[in-house]
């Protein structure tokens, strides 16, 4: 039997494909319209204020950027850690990584007060700023992953896939460290100012990125009616479970460290036991929906080998991850700055009070537009280039599959004769 993996473009000519693309196009158009409205009117039309300066667009953007580096995991596992089973998935992993990063950056850029000054951001640098480093980390990531994809897809260059894959892997770790440090290096905010932010963002990226990857994989294989064997589904399920557990561990350590220090009791009480949306998002969103339920699906044998359950677990991980990102970004700003320790403070400028935030339809539109753009890049990408294997059935990808062992035995027998 022929056991080589063959990559083919998806036909992409079905009605469903075009309807889905049109739907994404609609979201992208809505996002662009929202961005235009925000820039034209000024940010007062959004829910963002001088207290909550980063809103839901930043939750979308940071989530997408973090997930982008995580989406590259599957490729890293195959190229850097030499796991053959993941190799057929590497091209899709790279494409998704680039797409998510571009989507996230678009949201970030279009939310700027002056998005027209992109050229300024590209030509004026303050190298003490983590933001400035990130501009290089992001553009570098796109370039390196693009070269990596080239090495993967061009048969003559396949042998370079490993070193370039290693570079991409190291780069992605730096990228998420940079993103986490945007918050970790803010000394004055009670919820930030923690070195653990950087590694937490790295494990979150593993988890959220893989969850999005799972959905895209299951979705495209379902849509194109290509075979997706349960061996790969099973591996992804276990891997997802591992990443969810790791994320839960890092978030738990973050809170436990804060709970030990009396000076942080205020913010911990606010996040974990407050009469506010953040406490609800934490326990219901991140802990129950984002962690306990997916862990159950990923580790209990009753959910074994089920594509549907893997998809459901992935959706739950994304929902929980989004909740956690909302808590970090919005919750971290809503808690008042401690200007005068030991004093109750009040002013007309909202000193000492918990800032309120309700996202406007424009901000949500911008965030959804960026997400839709990322997915659209993947959808168009798999149609025009050979990113996806024709089949991922068990016999093709698993060297230890029964058929393959039988095949090996028969070859061995033939040789012995």
């Amino acid at each position, binding site marked *: 039997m022929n056991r080589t993996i063959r990559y083919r473009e998806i036909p992409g000519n079905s009605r469903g494909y075009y309807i889905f693309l049109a739907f994404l196009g609609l979201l992208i158009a809505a996002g662009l319209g929202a961005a235009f409205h925000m*820039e034209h*009117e*000024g*940010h*007062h039309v959004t829910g963002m*204020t*001088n*207290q909550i*300066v*980063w809103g839901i667009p930043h939750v979308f953007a940071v989530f997408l950027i973090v997930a982008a580096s995580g989406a590259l995991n599957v490729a890293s596992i195959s190229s850097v850690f030499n796991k053959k089973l993941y190799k057929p998935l590497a091209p899709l992993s790279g494409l998704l990584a680039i797409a998510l990063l571009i989507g996230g950056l678009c949201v970030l850029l279009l939310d*700027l*007060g*002056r*998005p027209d*000054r*992109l050229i*300024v*951001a590209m030509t*004026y*640098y*303050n190298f*003490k*700023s*983590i*933001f*400035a480093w990130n*501009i290089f980390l992001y553009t570098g990531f796109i370039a390196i992953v693009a070269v990596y994809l080239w090495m993967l897809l061009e048969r003559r260059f396949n042998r370079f896939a490993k070193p370039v894959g290693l570079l991409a892997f190291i780069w992605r770790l730096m990228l998420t460290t940079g993103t986490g440090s*945007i918050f970790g*290096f*803010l*000394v*004055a*905010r009670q919820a930030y100012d923690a070195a653990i932010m950087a590694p937490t963002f790295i494990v979150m990226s593993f988890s959220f990125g893989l969850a999005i990857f799972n959905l895209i994989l299951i979705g495209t294989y379902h849509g194109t009616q290509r075979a997706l064997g349960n061996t790969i589904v099973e591996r992804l399920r276990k891997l997802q479970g591992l990443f969810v557990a790791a994320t839960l561990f890092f978030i738990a350590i973050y809170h436990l460290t804060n709970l030990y220090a009396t000076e942080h009791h205020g913010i911990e009480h606010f996040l974990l036991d407050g009469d506010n949306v953040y406490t609800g998002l934490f326990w219901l969103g991140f802990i129950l929906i984002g962690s306990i339920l997916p862990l159950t699906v990923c580790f209990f044998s009753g959910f074994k080998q089920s594509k549907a359950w893997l998809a459901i677990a992935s959706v739950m991980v994304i929902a929980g991850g989004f909740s956690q990102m909302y808590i970090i970004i919005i919750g971290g*700003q809503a808690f008042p*700055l*401690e*200007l*005068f320790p*030991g*004093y*109750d*403070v*009040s*002013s*007309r*400028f*909202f*000193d000492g009070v918990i800032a309120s935030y309700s996202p406007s339809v424009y901000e949500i539109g911008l965030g959804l537009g960026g997400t839709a753009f990322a997915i659209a890049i993947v959808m168009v990408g798999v149609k025009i280039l050979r990113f996806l294997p024709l089949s991922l059935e068990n016999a093709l990808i698993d060297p230890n599959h029964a058929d393959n062992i039988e095949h090996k035995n028969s070859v061995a027998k033939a040789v012995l004769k």
Partner: protein
Amino acid sequence: MSELENKVDEYRRRFLGKSAALAATLTLAPGVILNSIASTRATNEAVSSNVRWGFLIDTNKCAAGCNECVKACNEENGLTGFDRPETDAQWIRKVTLRNKQTKHSLSLPMMCQHCEHPPCVDVCPTGASFKRADGIVLVDKHICIGCRYCMMACPYKARSFVHETLTDQVPEVPRGKGTVESCTFCVHRVDRGDIPACAEACAKTDGGAAILFGDLNDPDSTIAKRVANEPSTQVRADFRLNPGVRYQGI
């Protein structure tokens, strides 16, 4: 002509010469002396780190209900509100403090603290946030991209983002929609030898000058003498940012 007449002429010449010199001195001297008092540098001369501008704020003199500094700042810098307190720009604000244990309360003005090591300058990706040699922290409105990272980083909540289109701006204080701004120490006034508008307005109140402006580096200045001889403190001094604004009575 006799010798005597010649001498009288000589005396007359000397007298006229000296009178003219005296008149010239009397005419020019006040200008020269006053100018040297009023201005430490010529307008075309670069600012120097020999100067460190700062405020000394005596909270004992700051009346709880008084808002004159805020009014003066808004007027001087053209900060017209849009009746949206959450998004309206605020460069200086009155904060009421109440000690959690003793219940003692006091009032003070908060503004950009013009730190020696400003976190806003550290985090700004384009370098739009910058510190002038004389310690004044400013935003270059031409290269600010409106990312608001400085607002996240400022421990004093001192910065505002311009949330709407602006009209009727004060020519000396250019602002821009979509950029970040904060107290400039009224740099346009300081550069011509005046004191910031808030300090000027505060001095005219019944309580007397709670806000003292001056050069912390000049040992002969009132502010330097007072901080040397009286107790004063910086807000969140534990951050070691060495703000140029010091407070008394907290």
